[in-house]
């Protein structure tokens, strides 16, 4: 099974979508088949493996933030479940009150 998700560094615990991947898609994460609960837009991230609350999130082999909740393998990793170790991230709400950054929720509706 080819995967639309890219691993940037062996040390990473996230994978990056190289195209928009629809909710319900079965994807292979290093031999384990995971069904995506939500749409994952191009260049958004999913968990490569289970990430514990408080664990450092790594991309490019470097820390990009800290998990604010437990994140399951295959789950969308974004502003709703990780935070910066420096300054808070600013995101806007859509007109319907949804966080526009976490537009994967659209696919779940």
């Amino acid at each position, binding site marked *: 099974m080819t995967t639309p998700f890219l691993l940037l560094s062996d040390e990473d615990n996230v994978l990056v*979508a190289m195209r928009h991947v629809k909710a319900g898609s079965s994807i292979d994460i290093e031999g384990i088949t995971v069904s995506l609960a939500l749409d994952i837009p191009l260049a958004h*991230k999913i968990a490569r493996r289970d990430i514990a609350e408080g664990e450092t999130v790594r*991309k490019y082999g*470097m820390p990009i933030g800290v998990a604010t909740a437990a994140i399951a393998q295959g789950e969308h990793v974004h502003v709703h479940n990780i935070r910066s170790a*420096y300054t808070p*991230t600013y*995101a806007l709400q859509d007109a319907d009150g949804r966080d*526009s950054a976490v537009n994967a929720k659209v696919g779940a509706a």
Partner: protein
Amino acid sequence: MTGIMGYLRQDGRKGIRNTVVVAYLVECANFVATKIVAGFPDDDVQLIGFPGCFPNEYAQAMMEKICTHPNVGAALFISLGCESFDKVRATKAVADSGRPVKTMVIQKSGGTRSTVDMGRDWVRGALAEVAGTKRVPMAVSELIIGTICGGSDGTSGISGNPAAGKAFDLLVAEGAACIFEETGELIGCEEIMAERAATPELADELRASVAKAARYYDTLGYGSFAAGNATGGLSTIEEKSLGAYVKSGDSKISGLIKPGDVPPSGGLYLMDVVPDGEVRFGFPNISDNAEIVEMIASGAHLTLFVTGRGSVVGSAISPVIKICANPDTYRNLSDDMDVNAGAIIEGTASLMEVGQEIHDLVIAVAAGQQTKSEALGHREFILTYKTFDPIGPACLPRSAA
């Protein structure tokens, strides 16, 4: 041979364009300056300016550097008359550089209509004069190239920025001076960046510049991170930073400069754009064009602009090459984009191929080819208030040696 024929200026620097600038020295003179420029739709006459009425050494120095930039052939200053900008000092700086310069004061020139008429007359004469500027062969090693990213998304750090980094590596190897910037978007990268410094003392300066940016943005309460960055998949400033950092390529870092400092020789330079001292005047750079203007003040002949969400801006004075990291954005905005780095995401081009394409386009644009934003008429310009201390002795180790 590169085929680049530069415009030779009296200080020995060479330009790739031959622009007549009309600069308003306070917002109150903007309308008149804009009207003067509007009289020349088919000539290289460009509007720049500074909106504030209060004096500011940074803005004064930036204006003088920009009006004596090698891409500029002549300058017309439009003053209302009562603003605090030192027009006498600015006029002398341009005159001393050997360029035609004129200052018109609206309050002494009979108001809007007559100043517009006088301004257009002067510009007509200046265009004829700069048309005679001597052209001479120009080597890649005489180019200064800046890079920024704007409207970044999760593709920027995977395709567009690393491809720009490959182009920078090629240009630095050919002796060009390349500038990367926005220390607020290098937060989280300070250690890996410091390892590339030419000297340990410069490494300390690089770390300190990022620490200053982190403090500054922390006080302001917002990182250098727009809402659209998050929509595009970036979750934190450090994630954005790591993507932005790769624009710098793999070359050794030769020095740290501040806006207006011209790189003393070829190599790779970090520009520290965050003001010194206590936080004042607001955000360091209110939007992308303020950063482009600062690199132009440091002599950048052209700028590589990497975008994922899809910026359409160009710049006054120096052409902007737009590199689109996101293949969907490229399809949507292809009339505005010079390079499709989204091909890397889709697997139809390699990083090295796109890096080479960017490098070759830099040479072609330097030789006169118009970029997409240039042809569309984009000439954005922003200059605001800042405060800087001069760079320390460890910042330019080679020139100090």
